[in-house]
């Protein structure tokens, strides 16, 4: 058979060295199949996935958090969604709906919904009942309570859930390359298919770097977006009666 693939020449058999050499090769940083354009595609898929996920998860999270209705259903549903293997869902959707952009994106939406939904729900429901009752007694309508009291107060947790979702999606969006789409996953899938482990490692490093950068940016936004009044209790954590920080830490745990 003898099918020499047109792969890289590396100076070593060590995949770490190969990965370094692959990243250092200027040829990989230009053109339609270069890292910058692939990274843009990657961010594009991520943005599209997250917009859909936010449009689904945030309204449901707000409703459930505010009213407390359907709490068990939503929480267990989010748990079930978390357990679905993304690559399997992607294959299933493509088999059902055919090739194209949207079937893989929907598989990723399933991945992004649970953390955003859980974050929104937890953020809203963790707002002190006293605060909500005070707002109600002042004559605020329910939408006013939700958007002027609960959302600003729950924002740290809501954004924490969003950050968790972003991180998962940006790291997982590589799988869309499995079904003919682009993004940084192309380097992983194509590299794996011809045993070019330098390319695989290089691509993985770029994805990790992108995810870390994105998370740092989001951490900054989170700091700016949260009301200054909410930062005060942090300085005197010991005597905070609300327990809000504990919940914040719980939702953000492991991903912030």
């Amino acid at each position: 058979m003898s099918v020499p693939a047109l792969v890289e020449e590396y100076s070593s058999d060590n995949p770490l060295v190969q990965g370094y050499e692959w990243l250092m090769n200027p040829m990989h940083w230009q053109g339609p199949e270069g890292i910058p354009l692939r990274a843009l595609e990657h961010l594009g898929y991520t943005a599209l996935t997250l917009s859909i996920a936010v449009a689904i998860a945030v309204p449901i999270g707000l409703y459930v958090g505010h009213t407390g209705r359907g709490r068990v259903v939503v929480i267990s549903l989010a748990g079930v969604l978390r357990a679905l293997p993304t690559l399997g869902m992607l294959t299933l959707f493509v088999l059902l709906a055919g090739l194209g952009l949207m079937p893989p994106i929907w598989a990723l939406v399933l991945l992004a919904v649970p953390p955003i939904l859980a974050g929104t729900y937890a953020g809203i429901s963790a707002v002190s009942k006293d605060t909500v009752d005070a707002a109600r007694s002042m004559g605020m309508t329910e939408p006013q309570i939700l958007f002027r009291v609960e959302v600003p107060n729950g924002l740290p947790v809501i954004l924490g859930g969003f950050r968790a979702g972003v991180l998962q999606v940006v790291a997982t969006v590589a799988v869309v390359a499995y079904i003919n789409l682009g993004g940084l996953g192309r380097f992983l899938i194509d590299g794996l298919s011809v045993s070019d482990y330098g390319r695989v490692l290089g691509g993985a490093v770029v994805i990790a770097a992108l995810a870390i950068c994105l998370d740092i940016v989001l951490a900054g936004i989170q700091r700016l977006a949260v009301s200054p009044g909410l930062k005060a209790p942090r300085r005197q954590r010991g005597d905070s009666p609300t327990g809000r920080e504990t919940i914040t830490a719980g939702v953000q745990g492991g991903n912030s």
Partner: protein
Amino acid sequence: MTHIQRRMIARRAVFGLAAGISLTLTLSACGGGGSPLSDSATSAAAGSGGSVIVGSADFPENATIAEIYAGALNAAGVTATTKLNIGSREIYYPALLDGSIDIIPDYTGNLLTKIDPSNTATDADRIVKALKAKLDPGLSVLDPAKAEDKDAMVVTKVTAQKYNLKSIEDLAKVCDKLTLGAPPEFAERSNGLAGLKSKYNCVPADFKKLPSGPVTVKALTSDDVQFADIFTTTPDIVDQDLVVLADPKGNWAAQQVIPLVKTDKVSDTAKAALNKVSSLLTTDDLISLNRKVSGEQKMDPKAAAETWLKDKGITK
């Protein structure tokens, strides 16, 4: 690039470590304190009545053929046990050399690439000749079967009739109107896009990178792609009424199923039994066995092998 290679490449990264560990364990268990050489020498002397171990690579088709070999050997009075799903050729070839296994079903073209990467033969007979010349001392191949598991350009019956396609040469005339679906390595291997262009002057209008298996078949049957790279032993070829285009210029090397054996462990009786299997095994048989094992039935490879052996009159 066929079955074995492609699946193995995908799995190698994941299973490499695990396979390495399990092989080490297997080897140390087999060593049993003595050196591998003396071990195999004593067992060859003691086992003149013939007791052999049939191994297989880690995918169902190969495991099924291994079960067929073992069943045929047992029917011929040679005691055969199996060690299935050992791993890729990088793992089972050394296992054969050191005597951990004695027999394994292999595929001619890929086996030649493993032992002589510079050989560019694609013709079935030349590959078998080259194999016999190049195999490590102590190993040999028996008769190849007609059955082949290799890459092929496949179209739907509708497409075949529309353009009157029988071979890739016919396809070349309309290539520029059609979209190809194939695994990602097709873009980079010399017998992928490059081979289609240099051997047949066929440059597809578009190329969609798809995982082999149901996704590619679905893309073909729903006309997202008009021709696709599919293995010749895929049951969908029969089930979906697909047409395999001939490859007259030998873009893909022949991949006949062939028993690869440790020479001094295989008696004449055993050779005759394995050669009989080779003389009867066809690509259509492999398709039907794959359907039984990997299709909805999920039949055990051993049970599937037994049905084949009965059909061919090797066992009762």
